[in-house]
């Protein structure tokens, strides 16, 4: 790994570096100016200019020089001098770094650790691959060609790094509900600037392509387009995210239904833009690599090996994306054809929110097990798992299977409003799955005929119920679930007192070690006092806390929420400490008495 080795090299401080660069440059300029003022040198310079083919008509005007001419003379002299040229190039790099620093200060502020790490990795990777490109693929022979490529890649790499930084920062900002608006504005401006610059660089590459030939153009433009696509991708993702936030904040009742429609479509829009951009970027990269491999006769070299490895990675990435997309399409078709949208009555009857996103359902899709979810939520879940999120009913979605979709199954048909008849043909989904019909009468929450169910499913449901009512034993819950076949109904039964918990005797004799710990303590009065001290100190803390408002409320301001959370935590800890001390005192008391 080149990055890890290079990271350990001592890098000079930016301040020192830039001041040394400025010093070196000013020394060079001074040297050039001195040379030009020397009358003997003027002839030399003029000769040189003529030699270079720069026919400067003003040069014969004698010792009177205009400012621009003076500057151009200095410049030419410096170009001629090798040391001066290098100093100028160094200065240009220094400028680039300083510009980067300024942008970072303006837009990002302090970089987070992961951003720094990403930046470092990306930087060294970029340098590594471009080194291979310049010396392995293009195989440049002349130093000025190297310089041209270097400056091109310097600018390109600079933009790449900024773009990466923007993406990282955007992802971080999207983790917070309370980002000030100007952060978004700054980041968006920077992204737009990067996009514009990459368009400009595309023009440059077209221009260079006229002179350098089609291959140079292809090499240059591929990278610029790659950069542009990635930047645009981030911009669009960002835009969607901001739209999302705005929608959440200012949703009024009037345009709610319209917004909801947009919301429903938004899922697929987001998916397609995401996939489109990622795939485009990957394909451009792959084509670029193929071009490199075939154009420059480097089939048997280290460079070709590196390029092949990179191509292999890109190819697998594209393959993965393609498979994922096929899975997505399959699941979506399956969803649309097999599971009907819930009717308005069903929606009103089921007043719960979507169990996946916890938001209100204005439209929903119904699974064979009668559970309702948002279309997009369900789709994104079924892409990764093929069971109902609520009851774990296995659904017949096999993305690997390529048979045409079966005709829509009549999985559920509501008969009456309070009496729904539910027929489930298990063998249609999995060969070993049982078939059954259930008639649910909502008026008394009792089922009419027995229905078999796999025990694992029942156990899973029972566990859900038990998390709510830990005092009930699993067997009772399972017995009731056998009858109701629904977590909700069982929970209702429990709440209505139809399920009675037997008295379970918990093994309380656990705490014996405490007595052993305290039996060791020899001086009882001392111990007693220390307990009192502890209680007293913690009581002091309590007084302060009680004055503050801790009550169970959910503040709108994030700082207040943070403070309330902190106070609640302190209070919990304090109360726990107090209880613990009380209890120990009691046990000690009992021990001393006995």
């Amino acid at each position: 790994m080149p990055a890890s080795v290079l990271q350990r090299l001592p890098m000079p401080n930016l301040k020192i570096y830039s001041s040394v660069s400025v010093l070196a440059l000013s020394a060079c300029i001074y040297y050039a100016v001195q040379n030009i003022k020397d009358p003997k040198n003027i002839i030399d310079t003029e000769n040189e200019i003529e030699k270079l083919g720069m026919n400067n008509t003003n040069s014969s005007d004698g010792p009177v020089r205009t400012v621009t001419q003076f500057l151009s003379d200095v410049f030419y002299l410096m170009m001629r001098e090798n040391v001066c040229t290098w100093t100028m190039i160094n200065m240009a790099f220094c400028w680039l770094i300083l510009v980067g620093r300024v942008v970072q200060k303006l837009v990002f502020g302090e970089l987070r650790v992961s951003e720094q790490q990403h930046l470092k990795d990306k930087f060294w990777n970029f340098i590594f691959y471009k080194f291979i490109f310049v010396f392995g693929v293009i195989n440049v022979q002349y130093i000025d060609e190297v310089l041209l490529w270097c400056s091109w890649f310097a600018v390109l790499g600079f933009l790449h790094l900024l773009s990466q930084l923007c993406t990282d920062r955007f992802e971080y900002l999207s983790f917070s509900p309370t980002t000030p608006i100007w952060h978004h504005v700054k980041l968006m401006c920077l992204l737009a600037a990067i996009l514009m610059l990459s368009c400009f660089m595309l023009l440059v590459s077209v221009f260079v392509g006229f002179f350098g030939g089609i291959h140079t153009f292809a090499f240059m433009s591929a990278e610029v387009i790659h950069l542009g696509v990635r930047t645009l991708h981030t911009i669009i993702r960002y835009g969607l995210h901001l739209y999302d936030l705005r929608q959440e904040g200012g949703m009024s009742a009037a345009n709610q239904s319209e917004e909801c429609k947009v919301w429903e479509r938004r899922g697929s829009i987001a998916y397609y833009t995401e996939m489109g951009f990622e795939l485009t970027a990957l394909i451009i990269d792959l084509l670029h690599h193929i071009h490199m491999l075939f154009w420059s006769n480097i089939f048997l070299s280290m460079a070709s090996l590196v390029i092949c490895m990179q191509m292999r990675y890109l190819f697998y990435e594209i393959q993965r994306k393609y498979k994922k997309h096929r899975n997505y399409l399959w699941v979506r078709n399956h969803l649309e054809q097999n599971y009907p949208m819930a009717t308005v009555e069903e929606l009103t009857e089921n007043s719960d929110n979507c169990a996946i996103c916890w938001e209100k359902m204005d439209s929903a899709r119904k699974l064979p097990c009668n559970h309702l979810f948002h279309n997009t939520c369900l789709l994104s879940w079924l892409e990764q798992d093929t069971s109902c999120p609520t009851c774990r009913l296995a659904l017949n979605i096999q993305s690997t299977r390529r048979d045409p979709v079966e005709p829509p199954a009549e999985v559920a048909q509501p008969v009456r409003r309070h009496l729904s008849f539910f027929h489930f043909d298990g063998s249609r989904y999995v060969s070993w799955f049982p078939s059954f019909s259930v008639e649910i009468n909502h008026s008394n929450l009792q089922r009419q005929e027995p229905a078999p169910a796999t025990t694992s499913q029942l156990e899973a449901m029972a566990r859900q119920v038990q998390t709510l009512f830990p005092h009930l034993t699993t067997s009772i819950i399972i017995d009731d679930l056998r009858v109701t076949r629904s977590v909700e109904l069982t929970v209702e039964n429990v709440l209505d007192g139809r399920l009675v918990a037997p008295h379970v005797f918990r093994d309380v004799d656990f705490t014996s070690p405490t007595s052993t710990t305290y039996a060791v303590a020899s001086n009882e009065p001392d111990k007693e006092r220390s307990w009192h001290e502890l209680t007293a100190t913690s009581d002091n803390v309590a007084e302060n806390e009680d004055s503050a408002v801790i009550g169970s409320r959910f503040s709108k301001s994030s700082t207040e929420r943070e403070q309330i959370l902190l106070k609640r935590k302190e209070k919990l800890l304090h109360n726990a400490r107090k209880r613990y001390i009380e209890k120990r005192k009691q046990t000690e008391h009992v021990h001393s008495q006995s």
Partner: protein
Amino acid sequence: MAGSALRRLMAEYKQLTLNPPEGIIAGPINEENFFEWEALITGPEGTCFEGGVFPAKLVFPSDYPLSPPKMQFTCEMFHPNIYSDGRVCISILHAPGDDPMGYETSAERWSPVQSVEKILLSVVSMLAEPNDESGANVDAAKMWRENRDEFNRIAEKIVRRTLGIPI
């Protein structure tokens, strides 16, 4: 997308604040990053962890609730189902396997219907009843099986440490 995950986390946070389960507090430490929470769990009564207040860190993925969060205790823990670095090993925190025939195990795994509250309640019941068959901490599992007194002594020590009471 992070947007819907954020909304859901906000809803869960609100619910946990307004109707907190007994002895459990959870919320984002710093709202600049809503995807990293701290939870305080009180040890269940009648067990060796009784009275302790155990802090844990919850880290949510950006596609939450499609993928489960990661949970790690930030205090010292000694428990058969908690790794020595504090990571919690319970089935509810495992992403559903793609094995179509592994139906029975997938029934206990993560699903978007689960929530922070359910995770924390499961952890409480895990503290009460360790599952010594799937040992994340083999030493603890062995001690739990064979030398319960010693286990209880260590648990007591941990409880006092979390409460800041000198041993």
